């Protein structure tokens, strides 16, 4: 009699254990499916990190009014932008394409030292100073175009468009 009751108790205990285990398995699976559907069901875009039209504009800018010679011999962008040419080309023209960050600059030593730049954006955007490594999502567009001015200096443009901007 006691043996039968003990056996039943054991069976109930085992059934409970498996029921709880099943519920846990199903909950974990449901959470995984939810995470996958929320993160990946949106449109998948593939972006590249170069914009040939920006590079062409940069080349044309350097060829205008001898800007290449002036900049490669220590001139600064702000002085040459007195006529507003750089602003007109790189701000007015690419504001819609890269509304979240838009900077033209001269960098030294592979980009570690920025000596001179024209920033086309708000103060808040400037403070944030994003790089390709701290973008919010993979769907943000980050482009970096560079033209070598001389052995140490590069003329570069950085543009960022965040997802949904």
């Amino acid at each position, binding site marked *: 009699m006691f043996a039968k009751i003990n056996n039943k108790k054991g*069976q109930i205990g085992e059934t409970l254990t*498996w029921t709880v285990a*099943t519920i846990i*398995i*199903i909950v974990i*699976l449901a959470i*995984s*499916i939810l995470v*996958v*559907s929320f993160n*990946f*069901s949106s*449109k*998948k*875009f*593939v*972006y*590249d990190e170069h*914009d*040939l*039209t*920006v590079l*062409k*504009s*940069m*080349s*044309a*800018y*350097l*060829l*205008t009014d001898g800007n290449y010679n002036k900049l490669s011999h220590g001139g600064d962008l702000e002085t040459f932008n007195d006529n507003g040419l750089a602003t*007109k*080309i790189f701000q007015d*023209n690419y504001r819609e*394409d890269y509304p979240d960050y838009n900077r033209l600059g001269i960098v030294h030593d592979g980009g570690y030292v920025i000596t001179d730049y024209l920033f086309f954006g708000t103060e808040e955007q400037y403070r944030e100073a994003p790089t390709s490594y701290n973008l919010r999502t993979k769907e943000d567009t980050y482009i970096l175009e560079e033209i070598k001015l001389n052995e140490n200096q590069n003329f570069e443009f950085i543009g960022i468009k965040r997802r949904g901007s």
Partner: protein
Amino acid sequence: MKNCRGTDKILSVYWFAILFIVAGAIVYMAVLFYGEPYDLRKIETNLLSNQISNCISQGGVLKDNVFDEERKLKEDFDLVKECHLNFNVESYSNWKEQEQYYVKVSFYNFRSNSFLFDFPAVGNINLKDTCNDKGDNSPFCVEKSFYVIKGDNQYLIKILSIVRKTEKNVR
């Protein structure tokens, strides 16, 4: 002894059920992840813009092929022939009957911002009207512009590239 065998059988049925549930969930997640197509139209439109910009300019200067004998810009410039564009598409849906591309190149005077002229547009002009439509069935439109010079003249060139192909890129 008989009881034990019964419990074992129930347990193995239970394990099979769990196995199928887990496998089913993994398959479902894989389908969710890989089943959504990649939208490659942005790359296609960029390729079109790049091809055209390379065809009409080099190193920031307009190429000679866009000028006629009198050194005037060719207003009848044949984009398809000169830029080696190929708008052929695979036999899918009604793509053969309805062109899936549209390209227009416009010239502006950079200093005065005034419109000069368009090269003859190529492709399906109806796509242009649906550019601003919101929804998954609208075509992908990109307008790229760049600054270019020739001698003392400064131009702004705008290239509008449109790719439809919604059936394969959007679900």
